[in-house]
């Protein structure tokens, strides 16, 4: 089934990945922005009186939160296989439900840097191998406090080698046998190696904290979390009804009730939204967005530059073992055309680097442009004047098959013959991991550090480009043992320059993530890539 929150959804034709933050506004800046727009909207409503059909960004974020009501949110889901076990989360729907019921120690800000949640603070020792994490004063739905023992229990459950939970790979840096609770509210994590970005581990997808007393059979009918909502009822593949947790440590939600409903077809989600059956619809198509953006019936929210769209080249085999061929491909791509035709314009162009807008992104590098002549020269130099390639694609993610067709035509202009091969969508990600040479690839939001460690190191488990370079690994280790953020940023910049010059990912664009809400929904954060803290954060939403 679909679903990856991090990169792509399992069942993806419609379930998808996640986005990035466009504005690159720091927390402080964003608060400034919100305050300013609040004042503006007050002035507006002062003269305009009743709310007219003004779909300005500012408006949706403003006004005094009103308490009460039930918000129904439609997501693509997992059918009868759905569960409320937060460690089994795979889909966006799972992630959104887990966020409502549970907390993590940390979560990602809009720039994908870790922000404290249940962890009030964290402090590494000089070696970056021991991290002291202090918990805030929070309690579970059963009234018991969240303790260090609960944290360790949760992480040990995730890391259980017999269970194969998704977040296990993220927690891999932790030596759980050596880690311990120094008191009720303090955990000392011992790591296997220096890890400057350890807070990312605590913010990892699926790393929710459950009580140590949680029983395996209870997740679907009596889940106990510390999140802003409590469970009322759950029917797999149908509906999850939650009620406000008045004792929530971060302030009780404005909504009385929150209901998640599952509608796999995009058209069904749109129809339900237009017909007043739901107030929030996740994952809409660009064409739908355009049709309803100015209609005034619903509010369309675009989370700009969200999902990375790319072609991945396998660097350990011909023809891509020659960096000149990789560079030629970079030059062949007409990015604006790809964004226009594949993403229907709902996105921005890429510069062959992951993580536009995220912390440590190398945004000072010049934008890559199409240059067919130079591409031809490079190919000739490489002795690949008559290059023939097979491009693997699949309807596994929106735009994949279209991107393959468009790129085939673009490459033909440089004398490259591309044969497009369409694979099975249920096994695509496994199939492209080791076979083929060139494939369509995409990824949702994750910190740049996670993208590097999961996909571009010699021992990365999902290294689909077989990019394996000892010196590159060494740079990653150097970054992880560098305490000073500025010096760490310098190392990341070096790594990114290398990736942009001769790397394995031709990143041609970043797709918008599109949501629709009813006109009376307020407080939906617009600068929140999927899987980040403020995305699908229904405790801050209210109905006007």
């Amino acid at each position, binding site marked *: *089934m*679909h*679903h*990856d929150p*991090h*990169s*792509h*959804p*399992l*069942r*993806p034709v419609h379930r998808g*990945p996640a986005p990035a933050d466009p504005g690159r506004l720091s927390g402080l800046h964003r608060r400034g922005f919100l305050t300013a727009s609040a004042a503006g909207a007050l002035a507006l409503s002062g003269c305009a009186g009743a709310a007219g059909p003004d779909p300005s960004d500012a408006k949706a974020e403003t006004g005094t939160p009103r308490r009460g009501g039930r918000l*129904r949110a*439609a997501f693509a889901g*997992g*059918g*009868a*296989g*759905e*569960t409320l076990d937060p460690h089994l989360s*795979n889909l966006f729907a799972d992630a959104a439900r887990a966020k409502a019921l549970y907390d993590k120690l940390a979560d990602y800000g809009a720039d994908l840097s870790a922000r404290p949640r249940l962890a009030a603070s964290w402090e590494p020792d000089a070696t970056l191998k021991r991290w002291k994490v202090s918990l805030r004063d929070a309690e579970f739905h059963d009234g018991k406090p969240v303790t260090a023992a609960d944290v360790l229990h949760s992480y040990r459950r995730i890391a259980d*080698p*017999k*269970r*194969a939970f*998704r977040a*296990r*790979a993220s927690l891999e840096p932790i030596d759980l046998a050596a880690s311990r609770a120094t008191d009720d509210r303090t955990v000392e994590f011992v790591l296997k190696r220096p890890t400057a970005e350890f807070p990312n581990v605590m913010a990892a997808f699926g790393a929710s904290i459950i009580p140590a007393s949680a029983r395996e059979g209870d997740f679907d009918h009596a889940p106990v979390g510390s999140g802003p909502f409590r469970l009322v009822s759950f*029917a*797999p*593949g*149908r*509906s999850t009804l939650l009620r406000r947790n008045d004792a929530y440590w971060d302030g009780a939600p404005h909504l009385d009730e929150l*209901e998640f*409903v*599952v*509608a*796999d*077809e995009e*058209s*069904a989600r749109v*129809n*339900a939204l*237009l*017909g007043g*059956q*739901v107030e929030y619809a996740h994952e809409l198509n660009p064409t739908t967005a355009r049709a309803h953006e100015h209609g005034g019936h619903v509010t369309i929210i675009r989370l700009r530059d969200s999902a990375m769209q790319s072609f991945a080249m396998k660097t350990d085999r011909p023809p891509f073992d020659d960096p000149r061929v990789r560079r030629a491909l970079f030059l062949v791509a007409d990015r604006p055309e790809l964004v226009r035709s594949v993403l229907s314009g709902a996105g921005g162009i890429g510069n062959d680097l992951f993580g536009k807008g995220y912390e440590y992104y190398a945004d000072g590098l010049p934008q890559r442009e199409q240059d067919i002549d130079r591409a031809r020269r490079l190919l000739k130099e490489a002795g690949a004047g008559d290059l023939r390639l097979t491009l693997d694609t699949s309807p596994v993610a929106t735009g994949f098959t279209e991107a393959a067709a468009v790129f085939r035509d673009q490459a033909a202009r440089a004398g490259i013959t591309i044969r497009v091969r369409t694979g*099975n969508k*249920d*096994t695509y*990600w*496994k*199939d492209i*991991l080791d076979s083929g040479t060139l494939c369509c690839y995409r990824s949702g939001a994750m910190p740049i550090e996670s993208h590097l460690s999961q996909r571009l190191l010699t021992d990365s*488990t*999902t290294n689909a480009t077989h990019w394996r370079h000892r010196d590159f690994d060494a740079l990653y280790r150097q970054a992880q043992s560098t305490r000073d953020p500025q010096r760490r940023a310098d190392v990341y910049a070096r790594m990114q320059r290398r990736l942009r010059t001769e790397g394995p990912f031709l990143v041609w664009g970043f797709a918008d993530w599109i949501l629709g809400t009813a006109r009376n929904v307020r407080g939906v954060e617009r600068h929140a890539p999927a899987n980040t803290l403020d995305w699908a954060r229904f405790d801050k939403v209210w109905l006007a």
Partner: protein
Amino acid sequence: MNETGRRITRRLILGGAQIAAVVLLVFAATEALPGDAAVALAGDQPDPARIEAVRTALRLDRPAHERLLDWTAGLLHGDLGVSLTSGRPVAAALADGFGPTLLLAVPTVLLLVPAGIGLGVLAARREGGAVDRAVSAVLIGLYAVPEFALGALLVALFALRLGWFPPTAVGYGTELAAHPEALVLPVLVLLARPVCSLARLVRAGMLDALASPYAAHARRCGISRSRVRYAHALPNALAPAAQQLARTVDWLLCGVIVVEALFVIPGLGTLLMNAVAERDLPTVQGLAVVFGLVTVLLNLAADLTTHRLAPRTAVAA
């Protein structure tokens, strides 16, 4: 045991064999799909170690025949096994999905029979006339519209523009029966194409029967036209229609997948789609048993009906 009883018994035994064959075929077909539940579950994070761990946890590392034997042994005890993805019993998932699908299928069939026969008889009575041509043209046109397109059209018109019916059944999942208005559009979509084929069949059957020597003879004997039409010709036209109806119900299952997706009705079609995508073999197998059983029983009922309506028609098993 009388002759009918023996025939039913024979058919049931045969039906059992057919179901077993279907189950075997479905098992083989699902096995032949690329990837297994572990790969499907891993999605875009195909970490080989994780896939291996899932495979072990789900006991997929055992040979296919062992898994099939286990499943069959369970089936003989009435146990359909547990879902690979959710770990819940397959029987519970089937029971959950059966309700919504039944809520779609029953009204569809109840409306289908009178509407199909009525339109067919109407067209046959006015053979070649304006009514016949109009009815036939509409039926053929309607038949050509795919469910998805028709559904989108009906929703746009009757739900979003006129506001007569809700556009989807989203959120009604567990209490769908309490919201019959949400079923109107889905049932109309399901009805559209079977009505066409059934009406065309009844029309053709009636015309054949009316043109037959026995109808001519009946008319010569002075029996009234309407009596010839309804008492003599119609039952003969209905015999093939009953067969068609049984096939239609199978066919409805295909339509149901589209309709369930479009209108967000969590029935068996949705269950099947998800189970195949997830390579959730026990669930797929459970569905195969249910569908097989329904098909066999319906065809048996159709044969018995045909036999009653037109006893001289030989019924092949």
